[in-house]
């Protein structure tokens, strides 16, 4: 009884404070609470697909795994702000939720955004997917868009969508810059031809990472035919210490150029300290690494945000899987750093870019790499190869299932069709010339 009174007392004290606040000076205070209730009622009456939404009444929610201190999330946050600006949405019309973990909190946040009256909700991290689906089932009138996810095409929900970009093309072009650098090092006599070994710091042995490092490697080898690569994994998307250690391990293993697919500054700074050239990811790292940063590829999410939000405004259906590419400007290369890059790199990149855009170059052209199938090592069991080792067939695991069953033929017309049967990458072939130092998954 006593405790009840106390709690009531404390609660009323807090209430009194906040009431006093309302009555006091701030007119914005009441305005905000009004806005919230208005939004609530709008939420229940949100427009269905097929009906146009008045742009001034539109509300967009964004869910981010971390905040702007992570390069990965910063990239999404910037895109959200750019998209809002381009579409002429006011600050009140976008709600950014940062630091949302990949658990029930994601569902709670998505549902809360729907409660607030958001017509469309975006989430940025792979682990958010199942919780977004859960929310999508509960709010059929709200569109839920998830970047990097794999399940939209099998869930069959009208209001749940995946998106990705053909970042393997960006990686390929970044690889071209790396190849040029290796060639210039060979020419200057810094390394011998057979010493052109690239080191790569990956997060997980996940298709997205495998597709990334393979396309990067193929880009480099298209310029420097003697290039080889070593890959090591940190088992985390963001672990600065592990990424730094991984880069140092590769450097001491005589890798002469480093690239990475993980989200911290660990690898780039390790390269700057050791004076080893680095091809970065998610954005330019030139400020921290002025002497070693060559170029970086990244996905610009603003085109997707603008597409999806625009679709809601126009009452159009959003694609279950949307893939941005060089043409949509979703795949971007940041500025080349002349201090670290080889001369003439830009021309080579432009040339390759042209080839990718007009279809004369395919990143995963099966004639450019060989594959070893090994039953005993369980290596590339989904692949079929000809007598020279070139891929003739590959059953990719496009439909996510617990048994990782290959379900879709991805090789035809002489190349591996990446990101065509769903938006997220599914190229997980281990090609010859790339050595995996470990398959360290630990956290």
């Amino acid at each position, binding site marked *: 009884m*006593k*405790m009840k009174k*106390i*709690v009531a*007392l*404390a609660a009323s*004290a*807090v209430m009194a*404070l*906040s009431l006093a*606040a*309302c009555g*006091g*000076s*701030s007119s*914005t*205070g009441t305005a*905000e*609470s009004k806005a*919230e209730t208005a939004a*609530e009622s709008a939420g229940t009456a949100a427009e269905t697909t097929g009906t146009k939404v008045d742009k001034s009444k539109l509300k967009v929610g964004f869910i981010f795994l971390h*905040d*702007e201190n992570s390069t990965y999330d910063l990239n999404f946050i910037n895109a959200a702000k750019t998209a809002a600006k381009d579409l002429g949405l006011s600050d009140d019309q976008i*709600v*950014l*939720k*940062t*630091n949302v*973990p*990949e*658990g*029930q909190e994601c569902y*709670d946040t998505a*549902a*809360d955004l729907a*409660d*607030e009256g958001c017509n469309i909700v975006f989430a940025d991290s*792979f*682990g958010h*997917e*199942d*919780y977004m*689906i*859960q929310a999508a089932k509960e709010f059929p009138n709200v569109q839920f868009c998830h970047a990097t996810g*794999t399940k939209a095409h099998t869930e069959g929900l009208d209001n749940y969508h995946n998106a990705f970009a053909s970042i393997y093309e960006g990686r390929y072009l970044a690889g071209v810059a790396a190849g040029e650098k290796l060639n210039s090092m060979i020419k200057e006599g810094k390394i011998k031809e057979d010493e052109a070994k690239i080191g790569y710091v990956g997060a*997980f*042995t*996940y*298709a997205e*990472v*495998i597709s990334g490092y393979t396309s990067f490697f193929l880009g480099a080898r298209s310029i420097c035919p003697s290039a080889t690569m070593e890959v090591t994994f940190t*088992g985390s998307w963001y672990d600065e210490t592990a990424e730094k250690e991984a880069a140092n391990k590769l450097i001491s293993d005589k890798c002469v150029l480093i690239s990475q697919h993980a989200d911290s500054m660990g690898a780039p700074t390790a390269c700057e300290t050791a004076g080893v050239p680095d091809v970065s990811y998610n954005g330019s790292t030139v400020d921290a690494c002025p002497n070693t940063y060559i170029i970086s590829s990244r996905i610009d999410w603003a085109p997707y945000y603008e597409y999806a939000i625009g679709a809601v405004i126009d009452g159009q259906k959003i694609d279950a899987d949307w893939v941005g590419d060089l043409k949509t400007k979703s795949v971007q290369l940041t500025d080349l750093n002349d201090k670290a890059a080889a001369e003439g790199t830009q021309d080579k990149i432009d040339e390759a870019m042209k080839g990718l855009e007009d279809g004369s170059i395919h990143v995963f052209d099966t004639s450019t790499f060989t594959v070893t199938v090994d039953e005993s090592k369980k290596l590339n069991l989904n692949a079929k190869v000809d007598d020279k080792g070139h891929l003739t067939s590959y059953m990719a*695991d496009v439909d996510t*299932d*617990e048994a*990782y069953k290959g379900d879709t033929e991805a090789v035809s017309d002489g190349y591996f069709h990446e990101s065509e049967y769903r938006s997220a990458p599914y190229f*997980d072939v281990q090609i010859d010339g790339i050595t995996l130092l470990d398959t360290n*998954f*630990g*956290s």
Partner: protein
Amino acid sequence: MNEKKNREPLFHIVKRGEMPWYKAWGIRAIALIAALVICGIITQAVTGDNPIQVYITMFLGNFGTPRRFWVLLQEMAILLCVSLAMTPAFRMRFWNIGGEGQVMIGCLATAACMICLGNKLPAPLLVICMVIASVGAGAVWGFIPAFFKAKWNTNETLFTLMMNYVAIQIVAFFVIVWESPKGSGKIGIINQQSMAGWFPTIGNNKYLLNIIIVAVITVLMYIYMNYSKHGYELAVVGESEQTARYVGINVSRVIMRTMLLSGAICGLAGLLLVAGTNHTVTTTLAGGRGFTAVMVCWLAKFNPIGMIFTSFLLEFLGNGANQISTRFGLNQSFGDIITGIIIFFIIGSEFFINYRLNFRKKAEEAK
């Protein structure tokens, strides 16, 4: 002149006797108000945002919609559950900071049942398996350090802490075993289609069952601590092991028994986290609750009823901080600063409840 000669210190500190409850809570209320004022000044100075707006936002972040209120209750329930688990051990002066690991191992056991037995057993049997597995796993995880403490007097603080990391790495291992899709390092929602092993929803509410379970545990723990022989024994062991031995209490047995209970309730919290809400297991699922619970216990002086209030306070501040970062576009760190200041004042107020400052002037008047 005279004053200088007999100079007394500005104030001296005197231990207070027992204080009536309303006075103690009055001091706490003053501390809370002082904290809010200081936070207000800092908010105004650092961000230029209206501090009153910030507090309103904090309030709305918890009570703005029915959903937010239910989320608050749910988060509170889980934190309270872990805190309740720690209480008997702390009362016994057994510094169990292994709550995190005990919860994690409970989560893992639950997830294992859902994955391996999910579509093979009928629902009631599956839930029974999950309860036994999670509670058992947590109990074992709590028992191991207690056993070593009882037999060889090992340091329980270090031991329980290390057990956290062991548990987290075991979870990491199984996440890779069960990951989907391949290589992603994530399990995702378990049995999303069949919902096998998911706790039923009561009415339309996903969280009500968890909240009811924790409410029952709270009452039971209150009774156990205050009205049972076990509760009395562990209090005596906490006060003085010698005394406990002298009156014929088997100290090692009490230690092991209490930690079994402590671990079991932590395992149950893991069950609630996996079967009740998240339906997955990750290495970060316990979310530091094992450590936050220590604060909840201490602030409430190991009183289960008081812990309802302290766990409410901590979750309220956490949710409020989130809402602040969303509404004002501030980094979450700012919300954390405010939370830190408020907690500092509340802990500080305990000093003024236990001690009195006698100022010089007052002392002179007394003469």
